[in-house]
Structures are given as structure tokens and as C-alpha cells.
């Protein structure tokens, strides 16, 4: 062969490599779907849906801001982050601006797989990395409960997320890195209440989403789960809730805190945790006690180092 062929072969080789690479990428990032025919016949329980609603903390993000009705889920809250500002969508049963036209399978797909009815990956500000562990029945019950709430009209604006984070398809890779896709597996050597607590905390409660440090890709640092970290929404620090942080708290202290927001020294939870207490205070006492039992059992883990010097604010 003459020298003219080598660059052409190199070029052809690169084109094929790119095409193959892109096809693999496309295949790896196919949004998962829960098909409706995979869901067995089921009569939903809206009362359990209410428990799921409170445990999942849906209203803290999805309720219309600056008004007291937690069940008005018209969205609109702005959530700042290192990846841009998210605007929480309308999940009221409004048929035009909310989820009124959604099927049950579409809702389950959204919550458990983080995929929209049009097959687009949701941005993980929606904590499906935790919700993926929820029981399908709880999610179906939640859907039934949401359908009983008042429709709120008004579509919320798109997220303000810069390139490259707005390329939704890339989230397929992010999900491969940070989601195991497995439902919650109870630990048979532990009590039923411990398992209930572990289930609530790790799935619907999504506590680790705030109470863990994150890496530069925005995924949770698994080795430091629950060990606290910088507030993902901006100011301040989210505390360590392993025994490193909660060593002085009894189970009763933890359960009381989840009910009232009152710390053992009398002070009240402030900032973002106050929003959480508004939800956990609505759970039944057995569930809070279960969550406390599980939290108290978390071995002591050191969190990331905190800024020690006087922190200068630039704003």
C-alpha cells in the first residue's frame, strides 16, 4: 500500500471507533422503564400512601413555596446547587400542568427509576437514588394518595442547569455509577422494627442525600454515608448522624427530635431540617421509633473535615 492509504485507514478506524463508542454509550444510558403489564393487580391503600408522602418528604420540595398548605403540590421552589438551580415541578393531579394524566406505571418509573413518562432521565436533585429502594406497593399507594389532593394549575419553568449538566442522556452513566437498582433487602438478624427503620431511612426518608458528603460528580461518598457534609443547597453544614455525631443521643432523644424538632439540649432544629420535621412529625410513633432504632445502630464514621477557620462570606 502507498502512504496515501495510512491516513485514510486511521480516519476510517477513528470513525468506526467513535460510532461503536457512541452505540455503547447509547445502550448503557437507555432510560429504564417499569412497564404497566409488569405491575400485578393491586388495590392501592391511600392511607399508606399518606405515610409514604410524609416519610418521603414530598411536600418539602413540591409544595408551592411561601404558603402553609403542605398538600398544594404546584411546585416552583428554587433549589440552588453546584450544578445549577433546579425548579421543582408541579406534581399535583392537574391534568395539564401536573401529573393528572400519568398512569400508575409512569409514576412508579419516575420515582423508582428516575425516568420521565417521555423517557428522559430526571436530574438527581430528585432523590431517586434513595427512592429506588422503596417498595413498589408503597409507591403505588403514594400515587393513589396524590390523586386525592387538589389540582394546582401552573407549569413550573425549566431548570437552570448549564452545559454539560443539561445533557440528560449522560445521566444514564451517572445512574450506572451511583444507583444499584436494587429494592431494599431486610437484614434477617435484626428486629422487625430495626428493618422498618432501615427501610424508611434509606428509601423514602432519603436522609443520606443531605447527611452525606458528595464527590465532584455529585454522587454520595459511600464510605461516609450519613457522616454529614457541606449543605448541598449552599450555606452551612449538615450534621453527622452516625454514632460519631449522635453518640450522646438516646433512641428516645432521636425519636422525640423527629417528632418535635427539639434537640436534647432544648434548642430546636433550624434551617432545612425544620422542613423535614414538618413531615416526620406526621408519621406514626412506631415508625419514628423504628427510625431512631436504626440510626442509633449506625457505627461511628468520621465525616469530611469541616472548615475550622472563621469562614468568610463573599455574598
Amino acid at each position: 500500500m502507498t502512504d496515501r492509504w495510512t491516513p485514510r485507514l486511521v480516519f476510517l478506524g477513528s470513525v468506526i471507533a467513535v460510532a461503536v463508542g457512541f452505540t455503547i454509550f447509547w445502550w448503557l444510558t437507555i432510560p429504564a422503564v417499569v412497564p404497566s403489564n409488569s405491575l400485578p393487580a393491586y388495590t392501592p391503600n391511600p392511607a399508606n400512601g399518606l405515610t409514604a408522602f410524609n416519610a418521603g418528604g414530598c411536600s418539602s420540595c413540591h409544595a408551592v413555596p411561601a404558603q402553609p398548605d403542605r398538600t398544594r403540590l404546584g411546585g416552583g421552589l428554587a433549589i440552588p446547587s453546584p450544578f445549577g438551580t433546579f425548579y421543582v415541578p408541579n406534581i399535583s393531579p392537574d391534568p395539564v400542568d401536573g401529573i393528572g394524566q400519568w398512569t400508575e406505571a409512569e409514576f412508579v418509573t419516575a420515582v423508582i427509576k428516575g425516568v420521565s413518562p417521555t423517557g428522559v432521565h430526571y436530574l438527581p436533585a430528585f432523590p431517586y437514588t434513595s427512592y429506588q429502594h422503596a417498595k413498589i406497593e408503597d409507591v403505588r399507594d403514594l400515587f393513589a394518595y396524590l390523586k386525592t389532593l387538589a389540582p394546582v394549575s401552573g407549569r413550573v419553568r425549566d431548570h437552570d442547569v448549564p452545559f454539560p449538566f443539561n445533557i440528560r442522556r449522560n445521566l444514564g452513566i451517572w445512574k450506572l455509577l451511583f444507583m444499584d437498582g436494587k429494592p431494599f433487602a431486610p437484614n434477617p438478624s435484626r428486629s422487625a422494627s430495626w428493618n422498618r427503620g432501615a427501610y424508611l431511612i434509606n428509601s423514602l426518608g432519603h436522609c443520606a442525600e443531605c447527611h452525606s458528603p458528595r464527590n465532584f460528580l455529585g454522587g454520595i461518598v459511600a464510605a461516609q454515608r450519613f457522616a454529614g457534609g457541606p449543605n448541598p443547597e449552599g450555606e452551612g453544614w449538615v450534621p453527622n448522624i452516625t454514632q460519631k455525631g449522635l453518640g450522646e443521643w438516646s433512641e428516645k432523644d432521636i425519636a422525640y427530635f423527629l417528632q418535635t424538632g427539639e434537640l436534647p439540649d432544648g434548642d430546636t432544629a433550624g434551617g432545612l431540617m425544620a422542613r423535614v420535621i414538618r413531615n416526620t412529625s406526621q408519621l406514626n410513633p412506631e415508625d419514628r421509633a423504628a427510625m431512631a432504632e436504626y440510626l442509633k445502630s449506625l457505627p461511628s464514621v468520621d465525616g469530611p473535615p469541616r472548615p475550622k477557620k472563621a469562614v468568610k462570606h463573599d455574598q
Partner: protein
Amino acid sequence: MIRMVVVVGTLLLGVGAVMAQQEIAVQQQNLMKGQARSLYTVVMKMVKGEIPYNQAAVNTAIKELEESVGKIAVVFTPNPKQDVVDATYGSSQKIWQNKADFDSKIPPVAKAIADVKGKIKDVASLKVAYDQINARCGDCHETYRVKLK
């Protein structure tokens, strides 16, 4: 020689400025900690039965709380733009971005205290007073206090 004086003088001014800011942050923290002392080491402990009910101590705690709450708006007027070194809690910058809203949260605390002043006679009435006052403190903390560790 003159250059040395100017450089050292500027450095001292700079250090002084930083120290002055830290002083402000400490003053603000001390105001809050004083209120916590009145409410949590005196009132709350009596409510929980950890220490015996003492009318004189209750009256002093309520009086000190009332005086201290009256100072919040003024003490929190300057913005130190930094947190107290090694503190657990700090002030959100939102205080100075929305000072009017911050200030508006103070009268309800003062009112909660005024409503119970002179009416606390026993643990039961103390608990009612404690819950009402504590809830008003929380209304402000939710937006304007930041956890640092």
C-alpha cells in the same frame, strides 16, 4: 524606614479590621447564648423536672430574656461577614439581605414573653410559657441561623 512604617501600619489596620469583624460576630453569638442560658439551663430544666421549680430564678430568667430580645435588632445590624471561629451555629447572610424580614420576627418573641410575664406560678404554667417562647425563637432560626458543624 517610612516604607516599613507604612507597610506595618497597613498590616495592623488589616488585622485590626479582621479582629473587629470577629468581635462583632462574637457579640452576636453571646447575645444568643445568653438567651439560650435563660431558656434552656433554667426554664427548660425546670419544665423537665431536672431542677426544682424556683419562682425567683424563673422571674430573673424571663426578665433577662426580655431585655436580651429587645437588643437583637441593634446587635445584629452590623454584618461581620464571618462566623465565630469553631462555632456550631452561625448567622445566615440572609439576615442582612432581608433585614426588614429578620427584624419583623422579633416582636412575636417579645410578645410571647410579655404574654406570660407575671403569670408563671408553677411547672405547668412554665411549660406553656416555654413552648410558646421556644416556638417563636424557632421561627427566626429556621431561615436565619445556619449550622456550621
